[in-house]
């Protein structure tokens, strides 16, 4: 990192503090050894983490076993596994209409479908963009910035802009009309609304993943390609044999992070389609948020139970991915 002058002066007080901290910390190290230092390094983060993430998560588990519409645990009667029973009460899990809480299962399957499409499309688009940005093109930094730019926008703004573009008489249909095409009900047709949600989410996040892939591409030694070129290997084979395997660790990071983000999809889609038409873009987080908070049919216990079920699925997914990346990436 080039230590720019401004940064140097801005961080001066911090550096001074750090130097001052060394004396007591050295004493602490002498007293407690390395174990004490590890604890010290972990303490601030883990303390905040425990208070503001773990405790609420634990409380959430308690909420899921209580009933009523009150907000605070003390006011809520214990109902045991009633909410879980309600959520799981289903004749056929693949057919939400046969379930007692059909909305939950609609949200589950919508989310699953969204994750598959969104992660797939985004990885593909990010890969193509990264390959192109890795070519010999002028003003690389500019193009990189172009594709990264939407990452900076807040999800609410992203949803809003696209809603205006895609609504029945929005910019998109105006353009289609000018080109002599039939206008499309982007947001009120089941099929298109779902893909609008996928597309907008790809638009908003692909820049980040493109850069991860681009970084991986740039790290691939050039002589490998030169050797392949001399052997006359066809380009697609080179891509398959050299680029893809060497890019695997980056690709895995992309898949892990993209999957996590996709499961959590909320704001953009909520502002864009509101979950409609009907319920075709209602995802898990919206279900949980609405049933816990916003809905006229409020039931915090049910929302908590749903979120616990969602978390369980996520933990299983993470474990699978960790196992995968361990196999692919060696030590890690």
């Amino acid at each position, binding site marked *: *990192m080039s230590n720019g002058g401004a940064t140097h002066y801005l961080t001066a007080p911090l550096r001074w503090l750090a130097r001052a901290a060394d004396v007591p910390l050295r004493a602490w*190290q002498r007293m407690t050894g390395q174990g004490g230092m*590890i604890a010290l390094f*972990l303490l601030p*983060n*883990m303390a*905040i*983490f425990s*208070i*503001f*993430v773990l*405790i*609420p*998560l634990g*409380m*959430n588990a308690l909420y899921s076993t209580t009933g009523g519409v009150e*907000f605070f645990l003390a006011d809520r009667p214990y109902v045991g596994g009633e909410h879980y029973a309600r959520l799981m009460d289903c004749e056929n899990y693949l057919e939400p209409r046969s379930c007692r809480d059909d909305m939950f299962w609609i949200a589950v399957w919508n989310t699953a479908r969204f994750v598959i499409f969104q992660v797939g499309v985004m990885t593909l688009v990010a890969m193509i963009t990264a390959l*192109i940005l890795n*070519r*010999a093109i002028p003003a690389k930094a500019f193009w*990189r*910035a*172009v*594709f*990264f*730019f939407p990452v*900076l*926008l807040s999800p*609410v*703004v992203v949803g*809003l802009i696209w809603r*205006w573009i895609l609504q*029945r*008489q*929005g*910019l998109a249909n*105006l353009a289609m009309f000018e080109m002599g095409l039939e206008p499309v009900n982007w947001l009120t047709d089941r099929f298109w609304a779902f893909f609008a949600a996928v597309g907008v989410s790809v*638009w908003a996040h692909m820049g980040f993943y493109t*850069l*991860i892939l681009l970084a991986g591409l740039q*790290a691939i030694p050039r002589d490998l390609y030169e050797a*392949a070129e001399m052997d006359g290997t066809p*380009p697609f084979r080179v891509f398959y044999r050299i680029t893809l395997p060497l890019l695997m*660790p*980056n690709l895995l*990071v992309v898949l892990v992070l993209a999957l996590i983000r996709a*499961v959590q999809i*909320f*704001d953009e889609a909520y502002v864009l389609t509101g979950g409609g038409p009907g319920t075709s873009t209602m995802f898990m*987080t919206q279900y*949980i*948020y609405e049933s816990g*908070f916003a809905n006229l049919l409020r039931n915090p216990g049910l*929302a908590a139970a749903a979120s616990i079920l*969602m*978390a369980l699925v*996520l*933990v299983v997914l*993470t474990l699978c991915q*960790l196992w995968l990346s361990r196999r692919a990436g060696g030590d890690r």
Partner: protein
Amino acid sequence: MRWLVAKRGRTGDGRGWHWTDIATWVWLIGGTILMFGPAVWLVLSSFKTPAALAEFPPTLLPFAQQTVEVEGEQKPLYTVTLADGTVRTMAELRRVGIVAQMVDPDDPGAEPARVNIADRDPVREVDFATENYTEPFMRFDFFLFLRNSVFVTVMATIITLLTNSMAAFALSKYEFRGRNAVMLLIIATLMVPLSVILVPLYSVVAATGLMNNLWGVILPTVATPTGVFLLRQYMLTIPDELLDAARMDHASEWQIYWRIVLPLAAPALAVLAIFSVVWRWNDFLWPLVVLSRKELYTLQIGLNTYAGELNVQWHYILAMTVVAMIPVVLVFVFLQRFITAGIAGTGLK
């Protein structure tokens, strides 16, 4: 091969245009339109009047109807097709039902023509409704909200960088019991969206007395699992030999962290800094829960006060959104060179 490989120099290997070159430029230019277009349109729309914003189909540029002074009053101008087929620009005196009375603005004394409203089109010109910006500035404590936003963003980012890097250091450079358990916990919670634990989190914040307090916005967000994860992955690539050499020189563990690991992790820290700034600046749902006093509002909360039960004053919200976007874009412009370098090392190789 050239479609896969970065070549030095502007013209690649000089073999002329390959189809992939054309595809590249189509992708780049198409991408630019797709990426920037919506944002540019957002900025243009923020200059529209409420009526123009509600208009279907929308226009690209903000337009306003031209007016002209007729006998001391401003009257709207229309292009009118008269009964005899002539097309003229006329001012509307008044409209009753579907019949409008129009006169030539240069000859206001003449007998007004009665025109069916289907036979006239408003004359419009580009007009920027700057009052969308100036009115909120005067009425709403913009600079106070800005100060709160800056405070939250800066403090949260500093604390995030410090605590996350310390934890990441411990998790990447020491072997200890429970290390994997801690990592697993962090990764598992990476996935929990805030909206899911909103109610319990509220209870916790209320219990710690941080309601209606900017620290109540800052603290719950700083222990980001994502940050720890990113930094740890990067720090794993720093060779342990460097640390051992420093220990031989009697450096304390704190000094190793401060003097060796932190500077080497600078690219990853820069990435986290950018993300932290963007996240905290754009945070909406959580501050909305914690802050309900106007002297504590951040910009995102402040601009949202224009969303009512039955009506949303989009013209103000859009204008303030654009203003709120500027700092993030500036940060990005200044720090963007770190992003690729930083991401390059995070968790890869």
